[in-house]
């Protein structure tokens, strides 16, 4: 059974159809990339998939649960974790607290144990702290555990967001341009991290401009253009699809286009 099912999804802004009758499915345990030229509707799709926008029509189901039009925290409760293209870190906290906050849904938030600091709560806090530390180590930020988030460099914050999302133990992890703004080395580290997650059985939806990253880590690629599906398939299939090459490079160069040139053009 598909983990994520998107059916006939549409969303317009005024006269513009940002997402136009889009349907696709994500299988559990796969890395599913969503690519497309600027303005193709990737960000709109993401906002629809996290409850920030309400679709005009169509529905989205996660693990069999219809979440269309639900507020964001319900999507989180249903098992959706996400990171942001433009960082949304809790800059008023340490790295550790950021990741511990990620476990909100698994925590006891009753008032009485909290204000009296009951022993059960202290034990739960200690456990949460240990798990958060392990996660921070796992994304390679061991040296930053107790650093205030506003003292951390950009690349580290990108990975901190991933750790925070993982802390919630999501069924589906949505990564919005995790490599954007990173240099080669940092992008490679993200690449390694996503592969490790995929090997561990995590289902990932990856929205990314960095074609090299997409081609390396994805099981399936969905190509959007003007809010609709242009092509879908394995990275190799998509890279050789004439429609995709045309969308990225223009019609004249179709004949000589290879995976690499398409990738470079998209990355540019």
């Amino acid at each position, binding site marked *: 059974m598909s983990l994520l099912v998107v059916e006939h999804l549409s969303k317009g802004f005024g006269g513009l159809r940002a997402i136009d009758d889009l349907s696709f499915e994500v299988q559990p345990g796969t890395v599913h990339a969503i690519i497309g030229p600027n303005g193709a509707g990737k960000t709109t799709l993401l906002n629809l998939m*996290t409850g920030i926008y309400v679709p005009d029509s169509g529905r989205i189901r996660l693990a069999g649960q219809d979440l269309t039009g639900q507020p964001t*925290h319900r999507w989180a409760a249903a098992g959706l*974790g996400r990171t*942001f293209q433009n960082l949304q870190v809790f800059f008023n*906290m340490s790295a550790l607290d950021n990741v511990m906050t990620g476990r*909100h849904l698994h925590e006891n938030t009753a008032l009485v144990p909290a204000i009296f600091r009951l022993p059960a709560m202290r034990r739960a806090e200690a456990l949460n702290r240990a798990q958060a530390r392990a996660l921070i180590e796992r994304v390679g930020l061991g040296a930053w555990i107790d650093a205030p988030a506003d003292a951390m460099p950009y690349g580290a914050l990108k990975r901190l967001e991933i750790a925070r999302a993982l802390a919630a133990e999501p069924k589906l992890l949505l990564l919005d341009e995790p490599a954007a703004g990173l240099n080669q080395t940092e992008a490679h580290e993200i690449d390694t991290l996503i592969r490790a997650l995929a090997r561990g059985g995590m289902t990932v939806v990856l929205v990314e401009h960095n074609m090299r990253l997409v081609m390396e880590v994805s099981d399936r690629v969905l190509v959007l253009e003007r809010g609709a599906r242009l092509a879908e398939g394995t990275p190799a299939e998509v890279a050789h699809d004439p429609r995709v090459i045309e969308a990225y490079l223009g019609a004249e160069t179709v004949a000589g286009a290879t995976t690499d040139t398409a990738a470079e053009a998209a990355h540019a």
Partner: protein
Amino acid sequence: MPAAANVSERAVPGAAPIPASAGWTRRLASARTGGLGVLALVLATLPWVFPNNYFFEVAILVALNAIVCVGLNLLIGYAGQISLGHAGFYALGGYGSAILAARGDWPVWLSMPAAVAAVGALAWLVGRPTLRLKGHYLAMATLGLGVIVSIVLSNEDRWTGGPDGMAVPPLVLFGRAVQGEPLWYGIVGVGLWLTVWFALNLIDSPIGRALRALHGSEVAAETVGIASAQWKLRVFVQSALIAATAGALTAHYAGFITPAKASFLHSVELVIMVVFGGMASIWGAVVGAAVLTLLPQFLTVLKDYEMMAFGAILIVTMVFFPRGIVPTLQRLLSRSRR
């Protein structure tokens, strides 16, 4: 210092120094227990140096304002919402308990919690629709509510005694009336200490992280499952309950209450205390309440120029302590330590 060993293992060269993990938590814990110890010590010592009852009166006023501000700061500093009607909740707590006790012959130990609970219900009714909206609708709604409360308290003189106020029956516990400044100082002092302790515990718990997350990034808070509207409503109702409790205590301590307690100006004063002392800082709320309650007592010598001096002090403080007194001092202190 053994913690120094941890600092050296840094992955990114040239990056900001990272506080050692054990040292950091220990310092946090010590600031917490240390602060609570100092507060207990100050509260316990003051009665021995107070020359007369007037000092007790001022100290009680400081403590009551501090209690309200700690609650209000949870709302302003953490949930990021402003209430301009907390004086209304404060006055309703006092009037509610006073009216139940004086006109309804309720025992005060019952009228106080009943009035506080009713204020909580009112806050819930106002907060529920407004906090679902993004933006500062709560400030507008509470502003309106505060004005309405103030007008009703002045005009319904059959119940409230009108603009002149009403006499409030004393709190009777174990067959004896609770009276006298030193005794009330003890009650309010213990109340303040407990409020600070509860608030510090709360902020250092999953609830506190959820509130700090709302403050840091509401979008991100929602994506980790924090129901922002629900949490804001919880904090708003809790802060109203605290204000109402302080109001009820004030009424039964003073034996008298007037609609001035509900004035819009009093609501603004409470917000200023929070911002002055430092938003998102429990100790900031205490310091802000203390300084701004005591300041007018000292400035009375200036007579006509009192308000001018008060304003000037506020402006100068906010220029040099833009985050509020406590957070700015903390920042300076931690910087000088590095």
